């Protein structure tokens, strides 16, 4: 069915597409789940809906409440779309070095933006949002890093779709950010498909976005449970951009940088298998990265150390 009473109801049910021209090992089939086909163009529509439903269910929203969330873009944009439809005020805390499309989209949806220092990466945005919420009771923090509604969205929707469309899968590869996708999909697949491997692709952080003063400022999302994963592999910005371009060249799929990273890791995994099926979750499309000109221009090593593209 594809007739809906509102855009919120159009979240999810994204296509899964075989990427045989991209796949490096002819004995291993590869599929991409295109989360960029969600209403605001990313997997975070699923998460934002579950986060807001949880706040409503728990009675945490009052007349003067302002929803406050740290996000380098996608979660903020998804929340903004739903907040506008449901009449909530939204403020997004965002590193000041993210691409300008994200700021434009948030403004279009009527969200307010608070800048956090780009040199502190997402860590800085999380810390600032948590401090603002602690200081002002009007702010209500859905907190995608700590809220079990984040992985639950994937447990109840994303994973169910993956199993329905590709029951034969042997390996699931997703990007590690808040860890919500990997935790939710991973748990469900483990329950319903014993022997499946859950692999995390993790971006190698740039030198200039690691502004920690000490290790004590490190951060592991509260929702992260390392036991859900079977493997966790680093991927560089260069490898991510390379895979993202190859996907566009071979499959005509226009995906974002983190999707490139996930595919680079998925391809490594496929190369090491004798036979089987790998599913890669591509979190967003390439639209919000166009201003970086990554499809024509190779970022220099120095540029890559300061980028916030994942």
């Amino acid at each position, binding site marked *: 069915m594809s007739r809906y009473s509102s855009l919120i109801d159009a979240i999810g049910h994204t296509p899964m597409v075989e990427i045989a021209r991209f796949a490096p090992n002819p004995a291993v089939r590869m599929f991409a789940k295109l989360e960029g086909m969600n209403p605001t163009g990313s997997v975070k529509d699923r998460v934002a809906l579950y986060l807001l439903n949880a706040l409503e269910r728990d009675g945490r929203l009052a007349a003067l409440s302002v929803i406050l969330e740290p996000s380098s873009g996608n979660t903020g944009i998804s929340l903004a779309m739903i907040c506008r439809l449901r009449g909530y005020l939204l403020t997004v805390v965002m590193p000041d070095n993210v691409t300008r499309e994200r700021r434009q989209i948030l403004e279009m949806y009527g969200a307010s933006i608070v800048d956090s220092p780009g040199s502190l990466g997402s860590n800085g945005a999380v810390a600032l949002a948590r401090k603002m919420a602690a200081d002002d009771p009007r702010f209500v923090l859905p907190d995608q890093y700590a809220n079990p509604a984040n992985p639950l969205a994937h447990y109840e929707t994303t994973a169910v779709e993956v199993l329905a469309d590709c029951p034969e899968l042997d390996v699931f590869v997703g990007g590690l950010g808040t860890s919500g996708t990997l935790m939710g999909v991973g748990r469900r697949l483990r329950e319903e498909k014993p022997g499946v491997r859950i692999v995390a692709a*993790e971006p190698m952080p740039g030198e200039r976005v690691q502004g920690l003063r000490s290790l004590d400022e490190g951060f592991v999302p509260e929702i992260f449970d390392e036991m859900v994963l079977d493997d966790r*592999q680093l991927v560089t910005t260069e490898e991510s951009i390379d895979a993202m371009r190859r996907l566009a060249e071979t499959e005509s799929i226009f995906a974002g940088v983190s999707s490139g990273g996930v595919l680079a890791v998925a391809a490594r995994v496929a190369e090491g298998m004798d036979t089987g099926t790998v599913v890669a979750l591509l979190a967003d499309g390439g639209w919000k990265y166009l201003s970086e000109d990554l499809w024509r221009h190779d970022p220099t090593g120095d540029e890559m150390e300061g980028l916030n593209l994942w």
Partner: protein
Amino acid sequence: MTRVRIPPVLRVHVGDQKEVDASGDTVGAVLKDLAGRHPGLGEQLFNSDGALHRFVNVYLNGRDVRYLGLLETPVGERDAVIILPAMAGGR
């Protein structure tokens, strides 16, 4: 010798070098060799019980050693070790 990449937050302990060499046939031995030669680094890498600090991630050829053999993971001469702080990611 194994090449070990040091993240900016820990470079103060190794004379501001981005990469250092260390010897050992496991990840744990390599890190302990490094800690022995750079006072201060050991306390950052390990807890009092000798396990990896919660906010330290160690990778062998790009793979998190927590999913290999942890500190017992064998290391060869040509392998690369990367140390990173645990940081928030995500959109």
